[in-house]
């Protein structure tokens, strides 16, 4: 398949959802299994139109549980695969997100966050799934979750999500939000080859010597796909390097520790954030997704009032860039964390700041972005208490 032909290099005016789908295509995604849900439907619609035309498969499954399973199955069939959803569907996908973690299946799951709980506000923004992204499936595991702040970043981070999923063999989360998903903006799609696209980490070992879950030095095992004569066994049960179930605490210790450590040990390679005048700021605003962008207005307003205000924008929410934030915490007067929920990532921020500076949450139950003055007031307030 000539991937080059399918990439729409050039300048576009795209919605975040559309850009996300195009990012998948750029990264080589050729299978999409999904279920329509506002505000993620446009990702599916884009894929329904684009994938069949470039040799890919689009299938609308009967629900989000099935969607996640189909995406895992397709990955083992040899295709790069993805799905997209929002709150209620994200909850349903958590079950087999866990299967993907346990079976080390590369794929991408996009959550265009809306306001919840339950059906909530289907057409309006929320950022309430950040902790669900981290802990939503049962058991002990690590995740990678990326937070785009613009349609361009929805494109780039979807490419990166695929790359990380192939490199570390796990389902990677793209935690968008409704505003980024539905906002339309300039999106530049690079020429093929301009952005790195990580291929599947294929094993070169002969079938009789191959152990499907024997890791390389970076703790990640190379992969094969069904139909290559390896007669692999892949199970959601705790397993050994052959992939065979071993129901002992020793096997659990070895496997689950490695599944976590492959992310923890390689976190430097995974972590990503953006800083704008963050060091030695009077007030540091920590935000992600659309909120990081909205926060620039109050930050500029506060700067006009003579305050030194910086921005620390999370690009990987998980893993959390804790070393850097810990370091910054000692240099800033206070921290403001606006998020469209009643406090989620703020707990991570508090953990890293560890009392070295006051941390102020600017909460919002969802349905819109913050009013700039609410963030501004928090900035001024924290600065006053310095």
């Amino acid at each position, binding site marked *: 398949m000539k991937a080059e032909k399918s990439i729409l290099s050039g300048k*576009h*005016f795209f919605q975040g959802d559309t850009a996300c789908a195009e990012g998948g295509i750029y990264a080589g995604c050729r299978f999409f299994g999904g279920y329509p849900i506002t505000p993620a439907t446009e990702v599916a619609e884009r894929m329904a139109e684009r994938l069949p035309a470039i040799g890919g498969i689009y299938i609308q499954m009967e629900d989000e549980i099935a969607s996640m399973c189909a995406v895992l199955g397709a990955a083992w069939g040899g295709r790069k695969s993805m799905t997209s959803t929002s709150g209620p569907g994200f909850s349903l996908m958590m079950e087999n997100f866990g299967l993907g973690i346990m079976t080390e299946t590369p794929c991408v799951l996009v959550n265009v966050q809306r306001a919840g709980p339950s059906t909530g506000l289907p057409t309006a923004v929320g950022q309430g799934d950040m902790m669900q992204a981290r802990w939503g499936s049962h058991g002990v595991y690590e995740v990678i979750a990326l937070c785009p702040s613009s349609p361009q970043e929805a494109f780039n981070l979807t490419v990166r999500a695929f790359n990380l999923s192939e490199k570390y063999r796990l389902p990677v989360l793209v935690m968008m939000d409704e505003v980024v998903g539905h906002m339309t*903006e300039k999106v530049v799609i690079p020429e093929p080859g301009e952005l790195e696209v990580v291929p599947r980490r294929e094993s070169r070992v002969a079938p009789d010597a191959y152990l499907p879950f024997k890791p390389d030095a970076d703790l990640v095992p190379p992969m094969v796909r069904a139909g290559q004569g390896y007669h692999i066994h892949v199970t959601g049960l705790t397993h050994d390097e052959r992939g065979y179930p071993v129901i002992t605490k020793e096997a659990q210790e070895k496997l689950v520790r490695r599944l976590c450590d492959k992310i923890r040990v390689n976190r430097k390679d995974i972590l990503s954030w953006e800083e704008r005048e963050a060091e030695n700021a009077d007030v540091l605003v920590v935000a992600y997704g659309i909120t990081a962008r909205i926060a620039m207005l109050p930050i500029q307003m506060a700067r006009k009032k003579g305050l030194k205000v910086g921005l620390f924008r999370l690009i990987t929410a998980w893993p959390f860039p804790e070393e850097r934030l810990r370091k910054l915490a000692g240099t800033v007067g206070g921290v403001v964390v606006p998020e469209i929920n009643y406090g989620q990532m703020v707990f991570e921020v508090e953990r890293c700041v560890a009392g070295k500076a006051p941390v102020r949450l600017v909460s919002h139950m969802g349905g819109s972005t913050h009013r700039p003055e609410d963030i501004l007031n928090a900035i001024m307030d924290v600065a006053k208490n310095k």
Partner: protein
Amino acid sequence: MAHAEIRLSGFGGQGIILAGQIVGKAVSVFEDRNATLTQNYGPESRGGACCAQVVMSDEEIAYPDIVEPDVFVAMSQEAYNKYYEDVKPNGLSIIDEDLVVPKAVKSGGRLLKMPATRLADGMGKKFVANIVMLGFLAAVSDTVSTDALKEAVKSSVPKGTEELNMKAFQLGYDHGKRLPAATPAGKE
């Protein structure tokens, strides 16, 4: 123009969102500046007030929401009533005169009335009223260049309808250029 905000509004089915996409595309792709398009609409895809908001700038746009629109276009009474107060004091309001009865214009503001839907109807294609309106916008406002808007229309409408839409655009444009002057403030 460095920074401008345009709000296009009407009811679902009038092609308001497409009009917003065309404006945003003209700015970001054909003028190679920056634009963000955000939209407000209810769950219905037909009827109900809907609104497309375009922020444009030569710089990076940090805050993508509209604060005070420089230009406000209303193609339905419901949308007009919902949004007319937000317009910038010296801003420009444009209404489809057959569909909207306007209220008093803010001092310093401008109001332009034009029959987009009637003109489109005259072509036998009521559904191109949005494009007629964009042609008019190009004629009376310098927020977006006419050439960029034309390019954006051509590349955004369904294949095979380019000629029809360019005709609609020209119709609105000519109407705008023929208009003597804007209704002065306080006269409605």
